[in-house]
């Protein structure tokens, strides 16, 4: 324990090597668990297949409409940026990984995924579940990475409360609801206001969905955040590569007008 405190780098290297070597075995075990889980799910799904089919068709139609709107907005955004001569924000690339280990319990809130620097993962990259932000990479090996969850007491994430933009730091404390610290004294917000990453410091991209502000019974206590992903069951995650601009999947590249030429139709 003393060695771990005295020289973090050595401990991290050793830990990363041990996790790297263990990841294939963990992947096999997790695969077996996933197969059992899939079998159980299929038995349950058989009973509800017709209703679910109808609901999914409705959802697909709605998503097609949203996709069309997103593409139009993307084109309009590019045109407006060009007009303002703005330097484009770096857009996001993703590396998807499967969670193979997550048993720190209430002591350590971290998970291990089966992607590492061979797959393009780096340290201090934001990690998302389908619901939203869940943590960041802290140790990256060749084939595995450890993700420190936002609820861990060592986690500190710069965030912003929408819509007014008040900035603060989301601090985990090993509970299910991280605290919101270092808000300005004049900050005004309501329970239910959305919290996103602020991008302060340039480590994480801004605008990643994190959660919503929860009311606290004690007005002197710092407010807490209910994370969008708070059910604790992570299967697949996406690690955000914050840097080079990459086009969105399935979306045509925006048509950018030259300065002084007519705007595209």
């Amino acid at each position: 324990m003393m060695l771990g405190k005295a020289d973090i780098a050595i401990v991290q290297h050793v830990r990363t090597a041990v996790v790297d070597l263990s990841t294939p075995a963990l992947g096999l075990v997790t695969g077996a668990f996933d197969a059992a889980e899939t079998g159980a799910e299929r038995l349950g799904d058989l009973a509800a297949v017709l209703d679910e089919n109808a609901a999914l068709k409705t959802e697909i139609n709605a998503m097609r409409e949203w996709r069309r709107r997103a593409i139009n907005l993307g084109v309009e955004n590019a045109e407006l940026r060009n007009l303002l001569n703005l330097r484009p924000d770096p857009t996001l690339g993703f590396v998807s990984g499967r969670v193979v280990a997550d048993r720190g319990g209430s002591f350590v809130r971290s998970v291990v995924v089966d992607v590492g620097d061979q797959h393009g993962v780096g340290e201090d990259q934001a990690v998302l579940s389908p619901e939203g932000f869940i943590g960041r990479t802290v140790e990256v090996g060749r084939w595995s990475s450890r993700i420190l969850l936002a609820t861990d007491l060592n986690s500190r994430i710069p965030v912003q409360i929408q819509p007014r933009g008040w900035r603060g730091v989301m601090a985990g404390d090993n509970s299910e609801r991280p605290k919101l610290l270092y808000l300005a004294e004049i900050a005004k917000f309501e329970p239910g206001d959305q919290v996103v990453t602020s991008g302060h410091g340039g480590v994480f991209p801004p605008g990643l969905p994190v959660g919503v502000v929860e009311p606290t019974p004690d007005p002197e206590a710092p407010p807490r955040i209910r994370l969008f992903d708070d059910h604790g069951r992570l299967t697949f995650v996406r690690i955000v590569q914050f840097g080079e601009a990459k086009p969105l999947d399935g979306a045509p590249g925006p048509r950018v007008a030259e300065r002084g030429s007519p705007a595209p139709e």
Partner: protein
Amino acid sequence: MRETFEQRVDRWGRAMTPMVIAALLVLLATARDPDLGVSAVAPNMALICVYFWSAQRPEAMSPAAAFALGLFQDLLTGFAPGVNAMTLLLAHVLVAGQLRFLLSQSFLVAWCAFAIFAIGAEALRGGLFWFFADRPPDLAEAGLRVAVTTALHPFFAWALGKLDGRLYRDEA
């Protein structure tokens, strides 16, 4: 008579098997659990193995082996290195010290003794974490882990006993 190479490999393999089994069980307990609605709390497989082998086959679970197993568990789960290592080392020392008592008792008494060890191990782990992280552990989850570990102990003790019988059959 000098030991042949095959005899040496055989002896080495038998000596390593308990540690390998224990490490695999720790891996199993660390893997992501299936979302089948069962408890998300994993049993302390390392403690079950250290308790069994320290009592049944002390030469197969030395203090260094117990420490190494705990360190492996620390590195895999993200604990500060040494928390589980110290816990398992202490468990091994206490079991070794009470060996005569434990081996002379019925299974039910040995099981109750294991429950006490499980409570002590969880308390030590939580206390060390509290000391270094300045945050108390979740008592409900700790209690659940002790209960799950104690409940599963008879099954794994039976399985490890069968394995022990096969490994060391020639010595009987």
